[in-house]
């Protein structure tokens, strides 16, 4: 069973990714795909879930789930898990999913595997694959408990192409959520200035490193990212130098992302940075040093000073978009 932790907003993209992954396993090994949607005002959001692979949709709809709270979501998740009877519970690798997984695992006495990038159905059972050692190796893992919880890295599973002929049964699940039992409460909510698409969700990321030499060139990266419908990222060097906010950092101690296209500009490709982009489908690197390690993982490389290439790249993309 996959989980959609929606709060009061739309279904996260991860929902369709989890459904796609679960569907692939069910098609290979048998079994049903359930989807638990936890949130407030859920009814109108579930329309396309059957088409994307769900056999059964379990809805836990409560005003207490409008904003993520670990105690509320734990109660809801447990109720859904019990109603479903599924033995594999898939959670999205966003902050909510990562927060909920260990709690759910503990309470259900389920073994958990986090940061998975693949599910493998084999005759011996389901196995989970995750990157280890900063992405330099992969581990194939078996969970021995009957119930298993897995947190799937965002953008690692592919959604299914929707099949409008598919049908799913919808079950409303009651969960006893009692706010007086909550062990923590939100005292203050500070809204962050987030302009544009989140780094983890962006299909295209344009990233800059030490080679850019200062904060000014990042304006060009911002424009390029905007034209390509993506977000701006940065290496730790650029963040430590104060050229961009820490929220842009991609890498081992920053964000781990899996965009369709990753443009690394003026980034040498230190292993800690590469650990953040093992999931990127196509990596393009622009660097004046042909020995830069980034070219070892890039699919397309341009050996040049970015100052000679970027302005023309921007022009070409502007023209293409016009």
């Amino acid at each position, binding site marked *: 069973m996959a989980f959609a932790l929606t709060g009061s907003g739309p279904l996260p993209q991860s929902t369709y990714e989890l459904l796609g992954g679960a569907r692939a396993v069910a098609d290979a090994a048998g079994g049903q795909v359930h989807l638990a949607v936890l949130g407030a005002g859920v009814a109108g959001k579930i329309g396309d879930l059957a088409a994307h692979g769900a056999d059964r949709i379990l809805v836990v709809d409560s005003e207490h789930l409008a904003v993520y709270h670990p105690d509320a979501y734990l109660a809801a998740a447990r109720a859904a898990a019990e109603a479903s009877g599924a033995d594999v519970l898939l959670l999205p690798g966003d902050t909510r999913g990562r927060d909920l997984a260990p709690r759910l695992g503990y309470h259900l006495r389920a073994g958990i*595997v986090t940061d998975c990038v693949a599910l493998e159905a084999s005759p011996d059972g389901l196995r989970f694959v995750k990157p280890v050692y900063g992405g330099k190796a992969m581990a194939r893992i*078996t969970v021995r408990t009957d119930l298993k919880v897995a947190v799937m890295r965002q953008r690692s599973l592919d959604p299914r192409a929707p099949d409008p002929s598919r049908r799913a049964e919808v079950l409303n699940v009651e969960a006893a959520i009692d706010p007086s039992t909550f062990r923590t409460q939100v005292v203050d909510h500070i809204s962050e200035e987030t302009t544009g698409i989140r780094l983890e969700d962006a299909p295209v990321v344009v990233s800059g490193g030490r080679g850019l030499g200062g904060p000014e060139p990042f304006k060009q990266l911002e424009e390029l990212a905007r034209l390509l419908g993506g977000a701006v990222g940065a290496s730790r060097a650029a963040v430590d130098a104060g050229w961009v906010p820490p929220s842009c950092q991609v890498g081992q*101690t920053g964000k781990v992302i899996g965009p369709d296209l990753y443009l690394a500009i003026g980034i040498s490709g230190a292993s800690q940075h590469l650990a953040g982009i093992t999931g990127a489908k196509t990596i393009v690197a622009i660097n004046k040093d042909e020995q830069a390690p980034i070219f070892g993982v890039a699919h397309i490389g341009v050996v040049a000073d970015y100052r000679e290439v970027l302005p023309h790249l921007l022009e070409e993309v502007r023209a293409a978009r016009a």
Partner: protein
Amino acid sequence: MDSRAGRLPLADTVTNADSNQIRFPKVRDMMLARGKPITRWSAQDLGLDPADLEPTARAAEIDELFVPDRTSSCQFIDGEDGAEKARKLVQKLRELKLL
């Protein structure tokens, strides 16, 4: 971002956000540390069943560690100057339907 309040006992995780400042010990504190007691607990002291701590009790087991086949053959884009390289790059990205 939220600020939260909670009842004790409370477990908290600390991130490497740059708003969290490392606290550096003073030399005096380092010298005093030598005399501070270190409590040692055994599994028995914590009321843990040693069987639960054995590798065989692990809920998850690594079946295999492998290095993925990263056939990293980087296609280098050539050109007389930056403009030509940029043009070829855009062409390549279009071919790959990324643009």
